[in-house]
């Protein structure tokens, strides 16, 4: 299987759609002539023309709203918002229109729209360019929220997103575009609401998504050296959420830590903790913990930014606390 980047995996999924579905078109800020701020759509305007690949004004609300309107009229647009930070300027369209029109119209209207954006921190971009707001979108009924961690996830989940009949918020991680992994050459689809057991384990479950999956995996390697066998779950989608997969893992390991870049207070990790205690309280041997971003606006300085994000050492320390007296 060829090894390609997360970026290339996304490109393959988009190119497949553009070639095979005339209803699909892409629009966004600097996705055409510039090639995309993360170079995901580089060359597409030359390959598919300006009708299919549209550069838009910097006007997030109308760009997303026009995507919704075009989807209402039977097309299958993909809107790129450059980053999740700018999606705040389109949140009225996402929350008041995209998520609700199917329900409000009693099923008369469909909004098959993919909204791609880059999220996450770690590149010293400062407080206004380092958000992890996926939990906000996952809070909204009517939206699907996809958070790929690997190139394999990226291609399979984006293909599923394009073919879904609902609005999909597709959040890529800025720090992962150059990461590599094995990806089949042919097109394939990964189901929404199905987590991946990235590393099976018996002693505790580390639950991550997007960038935090990789921290969990590295922490699991460190824990293995201390005879703690951690299972790593890659959620892949936050809504729908693989509740059954999470509960099955916790029933096996009896302990869990949720890892996320997002702020801890009111974050999505709290939802996972709540579900575990509602559904598997008797299976728990310890409280479910969270290793989250610090509750501060993201600082620029490298040392401060790293201190604000979850780190392997922090995950390992929490895991050791949970497994105290259990390890051999």
């Amino acid at each position, binding site marked *: 299987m060829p090894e390609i980047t997360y970026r290339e995996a996304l490109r393959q999924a988009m190119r497949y759609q553009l070639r095979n579905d005339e209803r699909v*078109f892409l629009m966004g800020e600097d996705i055409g002539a510039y090639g995309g701020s993360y170079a995901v759509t580089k060359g597409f305007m030359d390959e598919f023309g300006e*009708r299919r690949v549209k550069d*838009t*004004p910097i*006007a997030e*609300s*109308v*760009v*997303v*709203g*026009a*995507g*919704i*309107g*075009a*989807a*209402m*009229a*039977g*097309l299958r*647009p993909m809107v790129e918002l450059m980053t999740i930070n700018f999606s705040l300027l389109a949140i*009225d*369209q996402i929350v*008041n*229109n995209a998520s609700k*029109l*199917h*329900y*409000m*119209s*009693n*099923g*008369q*209207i*469909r909004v*098959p729209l993919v909204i791609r954006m880059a999220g996450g921190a770690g590149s010293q971009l400062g407080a206004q360019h380092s958000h992890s707001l996926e939990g906000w979108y996952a809070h909204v*009924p*009517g939206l*699907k929220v996809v958070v790929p961690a690997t190139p394999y996830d990226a291609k399979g989940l984006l*293909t*599923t997103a394009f*073919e*879904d*009949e*609902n609005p999909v918020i597709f959040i890529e991680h800025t720090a992962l575009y150059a990461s590599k992994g094995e990806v089949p050459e042919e097109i*394939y*689809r*990964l*189901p*929404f*609401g*199905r987590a991946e057991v990235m590393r099976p384990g018996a002693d505790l479950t580390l639950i991550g998504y997007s960038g935090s999956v990789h921290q969990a995996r590295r922490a699991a390697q460190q824990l293995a050296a201390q005879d703690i066998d951690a299972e790593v779950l890659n959620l892949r989608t936050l809504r729908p959420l693989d509740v059954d997969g999470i509960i099955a893992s916790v029933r096996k390991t009896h302990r869990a830590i949720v890892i996320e870049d997002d702020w801890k207070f009111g974050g999505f990790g709290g939802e996972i903790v709540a579900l575990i205690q509602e559904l598997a309280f008797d299976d728990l041997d310890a409280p479910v913990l969270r290793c989250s971003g610090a509750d501060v606006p993201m600082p620029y300085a490298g040392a401060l930014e790293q201190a604000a994000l979850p780190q392997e050492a922090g995950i390992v320390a929490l895991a050791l606390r949970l497994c105290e007296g259990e390890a051999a």
Partner: protein
Amino acid sequence: MGQHGKTGTLTRHDGGAGMTGDELVALLHTMMEIRRFEEKAAEMYARGKIHGFLHLYIGQEAVATGAIAALRPDDYIVSHYREHGHALARGVDPKRVMAELFGKETGVTGGRGGSMHLFDVSKSFLGGYAIVAGHMPLACGLGLAEQYKGSDRIAVNFLGDGAVNEGEFHEALNLAAVWKLPVLFICENNFYGMGTAVQRVSALVEVYKRAEAYGMHAEQADGMDVLAMYEATARLAKRVRAGEGPAFLEAICYRFRGHSMADPEFYRTKGEVDRWRTLDPIASLKRRLLADGVLTEERVADMQAEVDDIAREAAEFAEQSPPPPTESLTRDVYVDAPSAEEGSRA
């Protein structure tokens, strides 16, 4: 005209817009139907049959009636939250509209939407929207889709004067203009955004000039004159349909009732409202058609009886309809059509 009645280049339209007598009578009938329907809705609200917000269109009937009569039946309509008139003018079943106001299963959206969110996709009536200006980007997208498909269907976007200071108004006008989208914007300037007079909050009170600033054709029309609305809309829709880019029509009009049923109307005088009532679009057209011999008093009485029946029957239908079953609560949050994810499940 009232204290804000300066209408710039506006001229009253005196011709019959090239319409036959029957067509003129049909316009009058539609306006009378909207008026009577809403009077009945107000009555039902007072009797506790309708809840939530109820924004009446009374006084502005000429705008929706004249404009929509000038469109093709498949042209998209995207409207604001004061949209009963637009739905009825488009031919949405009054019984199902009233049932929606009652929150009944037989309503146009099964009681999901209510007064502010009427939808009838079969009539290309793509909704009433309750976030001011938040619907304008959707109209751009509908126009974009038709442009992409190469069709000559257009999108018509009704908005209020309250929308013009929202960012989405400016984003939408700019995108429509720069992409030459087939969208006709019709701004119903009734001089008040809720209870705030336009000139108190707008640096430029002539709304159509804002659209001109985006390089699109824009003009004003007398929104109290259904023929003026018909003529202007037909002319602008033709341009838009021909691919000449978006156009903008500012309809000068006035709502005779409060912003919603809860409005005590402290912000305007009774004298101002009374002056505008002398321009009642229904009474004006009626007088004209009587004077021209197109209508007789007997026919007018018959028409009044007809619209009384429509409104009464709508209320009876709504009253007799069942509420939506609570089991339907979680239906249609998502489209649950078979999708790729199901197919690939092992």
